């Protein structure tokens, strides 16, 4: 899966040590939730890393046989408005026209090539309960995975594991507490196997608890719940833990903060979690559908044309792909799907969640 910027870079040995430590902890915890991380059958985790995930195990040639998308904002501008001739271009007919297309995208055909990702494997979950022709298998061979987002953005450099979004989105999320998203699992008798737990999502108020390097995150921190402003981030669902893996029932709409400098979140529809749990970490994915309009709004607001140019992203082109590949939530009038399935890789670290009545 994706290699995150924070918490993992340059820490292979440390990660390996942590892995074995974690195994030991998990092994010792088969009977009950390991102390000191439990409280009244509750354990909380705070999000430290997140990225929309693309399965890259097939190799670039197989996944993007026509090559990566190389027509981002800057390249499209250069193609449309060559500056090396005698023609004088106006701001209105060039820059402002392109910005207009970006902020008011449309689905009409355009001349720029856009390559969808190929392949049969993707991370994600079976969101619609069906195994369709356009579904993927997950890397473990389970069929029916819904992840059309991978097709839409999988061949665009900015979105791949070495692109700018994986780096910057975690970087800014770490520094900007608006992004402090948490889950609390309650009713936990056994962190390895428990067929009936409750999972609640929250937004937190506080900075992350890091180690001395500033790159790693330490279990045992505290996060206050943002009960006033973060009300719309609070959702609850049921779940189960099997062999240390938490899966949840769908949440109709879960709000996940996703802000770089200003405001932003994704309303993830039919949101589900699949996380490998230890007493100190929760790692895995969330999956669900995102409305294509909201996706583009968030992309543009978080990453304008300057930033999209880092990774040959063009929101105007990407929107066309999103709408073409959207696979759920048909518009009642047109019948066209409005939302696209996808998955994000997430990492969380254990945290004590402080509720308002406990402060």
């Amino acid at each position, binding site marked *: 899966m994706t290699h995150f910027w924070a918490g993992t870079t340059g820490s292979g040995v440390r990660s390996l040590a942590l892995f074995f430590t974690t195994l030991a902890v998990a092994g010792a915890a088969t009977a009950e939730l390991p102390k000191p991380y439990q409280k009244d059958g509750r354990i909380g985790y705070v999000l430290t890393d997140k990225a929309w995930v693309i399965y890259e195990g097939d190799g670039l040639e197989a996944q993007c046989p026509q090559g990566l998308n190389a027509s981002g*904002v*800057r390249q499209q*501008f250069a193609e449309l408005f060559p*500056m090396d001739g005698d023609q*004088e*271009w*106006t*701001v*209105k007919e*060039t*820059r*402002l*026209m392109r*910005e*207009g*297309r970006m*902020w*008011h995208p449309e689905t009409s055909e355009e001349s720029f090539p856009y390559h969808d990702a190929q392949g049969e494997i993707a991370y994600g979950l079976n969101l619609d309960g069906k195994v369709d022709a356009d579904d993927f298998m997950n890397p473990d061979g389970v069929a029916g995975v819904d992840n059309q987002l991978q097709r839409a953005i999988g061949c665009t450099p900015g979105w791949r594991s070495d692109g700018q979004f994986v780096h910057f989105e975690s970087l800014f999320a770490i520094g*900007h*507490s*608006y992004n402090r998203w948490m889950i609390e699992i309650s009713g936990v008798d056994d962190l390895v196997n428990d067929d009936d737990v*409750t999972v*609640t999502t929250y937004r937190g*108020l*506080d900075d992350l608890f890091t180690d001395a390097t500033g790159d790693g995150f330490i279990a045992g921190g505290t996060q206050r719940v*943002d*009960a*006033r*402003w*973060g*009300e*719309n*981030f*609070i*959702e*609850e669902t049921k779940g189960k833990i099997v062999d240390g893996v938490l899966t949840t029932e769908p949440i109709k709409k879960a*709000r996940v903060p996703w*802000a770089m*400098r*200003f*405001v932003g*979140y994704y309303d993830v529809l039919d949101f589900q979690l699949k996380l490998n749990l230890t007493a100190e970490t929760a790692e895995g994915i969330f999956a669900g559908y995102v409305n294509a309009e909201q996706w583009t*709004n968030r992309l*543009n*607001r*978080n990453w*304008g*044309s*300057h930033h999209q*140019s880092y990774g040959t992203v063009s929101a105007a082109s990407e929107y066309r792909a999103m709408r073409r590949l959207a696979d759920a939530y048909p518009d009642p009038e047109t019948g066209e799907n409005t939302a696209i399935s996808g998955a994000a890789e997430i990492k969380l670290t254990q945290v004590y969640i402080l*509720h*308002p*009545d406990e402060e």
Partner: protein
Amino acid sequence: MSLVLECSTRRFKKSKSPAFRAAGITLLGLCSPLNLRKLVRMNLTNFLTVVVTSASMLSAASAESEVPSDSKYWQSAASTEQEAYLEEKLPPGIQVVATALDGPVYADAQGRTLYKWPVSALRNGSLGDRAFGPSNCTEEVLRTEVGFMSPYPAGLLLPYADESVSCVQAWPPVLASADAVEVGKWSLAERADGTKQWAYDGFPLYASNLDKKPGDVLGGTKISSGGDGGVVRVPVGPLPDIPPGFKVLTSSTGRLLVNDEEYSIYTWDGDEANTSNCVQECLHSWTPVRAPQIAADNGDWAIIKHPSGINQWAFRTKPLYTHNYDTRSRSFAGSDVQGWHNVYTQRAVTPPAEFTVQDADFGGQVLADSRGKTVYLYNCRDDSVAQLACDHPDAAQDYRLAICGNGDPEVCRETFPYIVADADAQSDSSLWSVMAINPNTGRRAEAGEEGTLHVWAYRQRPVYTYAGDQEPGDTDADAFGEFYGTRNGYKAFVLRDIYSNYAFRR
């Protein structure tokens, strides 16, 4: 009609929810989401009855929200509170003028606010004036973009390329007489034509052709700039008359008093004039702002003896504190505690009564219209070598129309509607006015022009709502446009932001 739902277990109340609030539903206790759903199911019949009965109330939901006159952010027009400042020697003809948002500023003999243009780095180069350097605002006719904002190249023809516009037309230099003499922080810069230009702290000074009367500060603000919004002009003024250890910041609601680490300063209704009653339990949450032994009373400022024996600062007879639970600078969290207030040297005057204050999901509060829809300000600076403002109706509208409607005025009006006002509406605040706009062009309407819209304007710029905002407090168009809406786009009218230092967005 009202319905009371009582939760038997922890944890959250949804009393903020407009639907619950509008339907007259009160939540007792702390309800988890599942508890809420169960309760709603249990009370479904009553709930539906309430909702149907209260359907007409939904549109009036914002009537229950905070109205500006109740708010902690502003002061009434009758208030005489103004920021005191340190007097310094001034050149002949230079004066100090009080302003509504930025406090005291320097002005020329005609009362026009003076601005500096400090050099600042953009993505592809730097522009502006360097301290004690020459003015870079010249008479050169502006034709093309300089290409400093990325990702667009230099050489694109500006919308006003055929109109012989220059920097000095928009920003007339403040010229000094040939026999002018430098005094204090006031120095003289020589312009290319040999004339002398006044400079303050080494920065050449300009007036703005947007300012029409004394007290106007329409060419810029002291609110800090993020950088990618262009190289901005900043009004120049005297230092506030405050003791060491304090600062005054221009916020979206006035001149906020903070300590030198920019943590907020508070006062308490439980105190008496120059007497602190904050002892014992009170001190768990609040810390008196200590005054040194050698300091003396001065103007609005007094040193009082806190019951613990320490010296404490008082401002306008009110003892001052910091809030022990403020985790971030510039906070308003202390004002959430009953009886406690942030301190300003002067606040902006209350906006027109039809506006409201709404909690926003981003973690803070915004100014909103009467329906609760977030108010947006439009920001724009072109990418010419002069970085001219394009955010007002007297500038080219091409920039705004591209962002709000892909170049189509009709789409603009649907996407970012103006906030319509009665033609004869008045505002107590000089920052707010009613402007006659031609909605097809975005420019000021001529007298009697057909289709004229009368709209609310803030600092002589129309304000807008966003069609995509569905509920009160939604801010889906904050940072809508180039470079987070700072360069050419929209930003929410933010009054408070609990998470970031972008509390006072520019």
